[in-house]
């Protein structure tokens, strides 16, 4: 029998930004998949040129409302790399603390508001809240704790404004952490509950032998530092990123797609971090992972929702550790001299690795900038997952298959606005 189908989602919901999905199938064969990103390009790399090096953290933070800390961190690290500055001690710890806040607010929003409704068959979090009020309340409390931690350290929960090259503009005092510390301890327990709750969700039976790419640090679960490694042999310094990774433009997408040279698509994000850095998790986060049998290798991308919950436990634990050991440094920032040259930065945004590279001129102005966000890197892998998932699930009714394809895309918590610095869904059968 000659059968063909078109699965089409004209406007993909519960993702950030504007995109669509079109899948054409014929005789149980996927003919075409287009993960189209039609959000207009935003030209950040272009308008960074000619701006002062010191403006990059605040300008790039404007790329995204949910992971501005990641943009600030990758850009300040790149500038510090260019100037030979090494931020260490309590200043470095404060930067990790700021990243903890961002991971909590971003992961919790995705787990409870964007992804959980898929698993439980609800249209959105509002419908979910009617039947699971305790869970949604827990999510809201957790998110507020993450928001407040970012606001405390950086002035406000969205588009923080306190990070500068060399350190911070203004430092918190010990007493500033009194209230948030107790709330983080409660949040840690609620994050653990979130791990248990997400582990009870029904997961589609789907696995793939991914190449996972993440940062790896000698002793820490990675936020802001480490070598770029994969489970298939990649092990490079971040300044070698462009030697190994290639960006290309496809006609149907306004976001550049990344591939690893000579290899296939790769996956970056929570699942990659978990599989490559499990031994670096904090004690309670590792305990939570073991309790719900999330021991690497975890190859089912739908289980990334559990990993986000585990990483939320980690972020709470790490934040508590940093606050309990905090002693305000003498100066909010290190002194440094501006010097011309290249600077490289790569940190772990909630959605995966975020690479920045700048060329700074003699005058301290940015001559060239390159920014590669995680969603752009994951595009190829999303298309690959969709091809494999649809092929394995031809028997599903069209509506169910379409919904599960959307759910699959949300495994990546894609941030289209970041990627264009980039979803609608269409599945066609002809």
């Amino acid at each position, binding site marked *: 029998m000659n059968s063909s189908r078109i699965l089409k989602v004209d406007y993909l919901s519960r993702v950030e930004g504007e995109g669509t999905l079109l899948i054409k199938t014929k005789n149980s064969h996927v003919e075409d998949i287009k993960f189209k990103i039609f959000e207009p390009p935003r030209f950040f790399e272009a308008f960074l040129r000619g701006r002062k090096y010191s403006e990059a953290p*605040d300008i790039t933070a404007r790329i995204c409302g949910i992971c501005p800390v990641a943009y600030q961190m990758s850009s300040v690290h790149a500038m510090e790399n260019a100037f030979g500055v090494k931020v260490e001690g309590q200043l470095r710890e404060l930067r990790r603390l700021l990243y903890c806040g961002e991971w909590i607010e971003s992961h919790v929003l995705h787990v409870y508001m964007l992804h959980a409704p898929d698993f439980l068959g609800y249209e959105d979090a509002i419908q979910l809240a009617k039947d699971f009020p305790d869970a949604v309340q827990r999510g809201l409390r957790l998110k507020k704790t993450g928001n407040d931690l970012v606001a405390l350290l*950086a*002035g406000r929960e969205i588009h923080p404004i306190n990070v500068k090259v060399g350190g*911070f503009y203004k430092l918190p005092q010990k007493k500033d952490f009194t209230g948030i510390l107790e709330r983080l301890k409660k949040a840690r327990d609620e994050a653990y509950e979130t791990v248990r709750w997400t582990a009870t969700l029904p997961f589609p039976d789907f696995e793939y032998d991914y190449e996972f790419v993440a940062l790896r640090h000698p002793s820490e679960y990675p936020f802001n530092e480490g070598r770029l490694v994969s489970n298939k042999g990649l092990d490079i310094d971040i300044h070698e990123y462009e030697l190994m990774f290639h960006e290309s433009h496809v006609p149907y997408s306004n976001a550049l797609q990344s591939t690893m040279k000579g290899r296939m698509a790769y996956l970056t994000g929570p699942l990659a971090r978990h599989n490559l850095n499990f031994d670096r998790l904090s004690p309670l986060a590792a305990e939570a992972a073991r309790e719900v049998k999330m021991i690497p290798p975890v190859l089912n991308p739908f289980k990334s929702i559990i990993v986000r919950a585990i990483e939320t436990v980690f972020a709470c634990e790490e934040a508590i550790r940093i606050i309990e050991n905090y002693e305000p440094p003498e100066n909010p920032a290190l002194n440094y001299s501006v010097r011309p040259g290249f600077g490289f930065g790569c940190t772990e945004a909630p959605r995966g690795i975020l690479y920045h590279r700048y060329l700074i001129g003699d005058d301290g102005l940015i001559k060239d900038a390159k920014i590669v966000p995680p969603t752009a890197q994951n595009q190829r892998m999303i298309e690959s997952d969709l091809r494999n998932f649809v092929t394995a699930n031809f028997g599903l009714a069209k509506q169910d298959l379409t919904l599960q394809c959307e759910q699959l895309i949300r495994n990546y918590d894609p941030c289209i606005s970041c990627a264009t610095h980039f979803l609608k869904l269409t599945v066609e059968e002809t």
Partner: protein
Amino acid sequence: MHFMRNPLPQAYGRRNIRNPNGVDPDLAGQEKPGKRLVTIVGVGNEFRGDDSVAILVSRILRDTLPDKVEVVELSGDQSNLLELMKDTDNLIIVDAVCSPAPAGTIFRINASEESFPSNFFTASTHSIDLARSIELARALKQLPSSVLVYGIVGKDFSFTPSLTQQVKESAETVKNKIMNDVERILASSLSSNPA
């Protein structure tokens, strides 16, 4: 805005807001004050043209209304509205609206009695918008007994601190309507709880 260099600012001119010293009771580990009778929330961005209309309205009201009425400006994550809703009996929200209707058109929605139409939800999901916050509170049975939303249709949302004339005129109208709303709420409270 992102070029501000004082990252931990005091709450300038916020006489009636809950944390007049810029210290959030949650963060300071302090006990929160009791439930408010009336809270007014202006949602917007003061640097984006007509999007600043609600900020303007809330600042005028702050200087006009009695201290027991809390006035809050909200320009960040609107999920903070959920917290405000838990802590007040009567909530009045002002926001700018994108609509084909003429600039300055005023919408008044009694959100405690009717659900928000789906086209009020914005596309972004990286934060929880105003309509979703209200519907989420309704689903969680946390909606204050009265929630009024004033929407003022804007025309120019570009990077400018100035408002279009029609929107400025509507700001004055909405301010007067809210003062009447507050007067009615206070009078009703007095009659049910005489001193």
